[in-house]
């Protein structure tokens, strides 16, 4: 009597469980692997997007800013000597940021400075034998991914650029 009663109880047999649990495990592992894969990809996409965005922002800023300059030099005394305006400008890569400074032409004192864009890995103005072009490289290698673009700007008002033999993180210019 006792044995018969146990058959009427609701529940799973051992066989059902042995079959159902592996199937469930397969489904769960499939879902989780897709989830983890998607998440990893999302992070990588974000990192790369951010890298490119920072490089583009700084690269385009320099291009726009320096294009109409009339005097460009790595040496600020040259710029101050030729400048007829009251101010001259400096683009400096310092503390992993691009900083634009406005300086007084008379004594070189700092009038104001602004930080442009986000943290970069490297920014340098390159020596370029080409006439009337300013070449610079912007690099960002954040979070294990890198993105680097080399820009060359046509200088509308300048025939020759004076740059040192080694690459420089600082450049002085004036629009007069």
């Amino acid at each position: 009597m006792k044995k018969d009663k146990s058959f009427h109880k609701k529940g799973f047999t051992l066989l059902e469980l042995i079959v159902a649990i592996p199937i469930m495990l397969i489904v769960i592992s499939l879902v989780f692997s897709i989830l983890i894969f998607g998440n990893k990809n999302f992070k990588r996409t974000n990192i790369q997007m951010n890298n490119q965005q920072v490089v583009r922002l700084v690269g385009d800023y320099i291009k726009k800013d320096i294009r109409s300059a009339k005097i460009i030099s790595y040496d600020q005394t040259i710029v101050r000597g030729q400048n007829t305006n009251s101010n001259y400008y400096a683009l400096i890569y310092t503390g992993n940021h691009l900083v634009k400074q406005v300086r007084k032409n008379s004594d070189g004192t700092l009038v104001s400075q602004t930080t442009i864009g986000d943290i970069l890995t490297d920014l340098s103005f390159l020596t370029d034998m080409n006439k009337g072009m300013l070449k610079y490289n912007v690099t960002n290698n954040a979070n294990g991914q890198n993105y680097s673009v080399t820009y060359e700007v046509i200088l509308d008002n300048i025939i020759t650029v004076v740059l040192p033999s080694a690459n420089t993180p600082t450049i002085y210019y004036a629009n007069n």
Partner: protein
Amino acid sequence: MKIVSKQSGFTIVEEIVSLAIISIVVVGFLPIILGSLKNIYVNGNRTKNVSSAENMIGNAVKGNSTTGIVQTNQTISITLKNSLGTTILPSGSIQGKNITFNKSADNQTTLATFVPD
């Protein structure tokens, strides 16, 4: 035993078939996840290509180097008319160069400009 066999549920064959269908659907969604990353890289390369095209065109305009650049002489003729169709300025022409950069790869970039002599 009869009560047990009356229970409704899925058979093992149904389970396996449904699993297969689900996995096919899920795998079908993978390109969407991968696509965003790929597109970011493609766009990054596009920026680099446009930048290098600008560099080459710039050097050609400044007369430095013309490698990878096609230059063709071109004359543009201009006639200035008012809204009634009367000629205000007689036709004149501007002579210059068409400077074209064309890179035909999987990331095609074309840039052209006209520089008057």
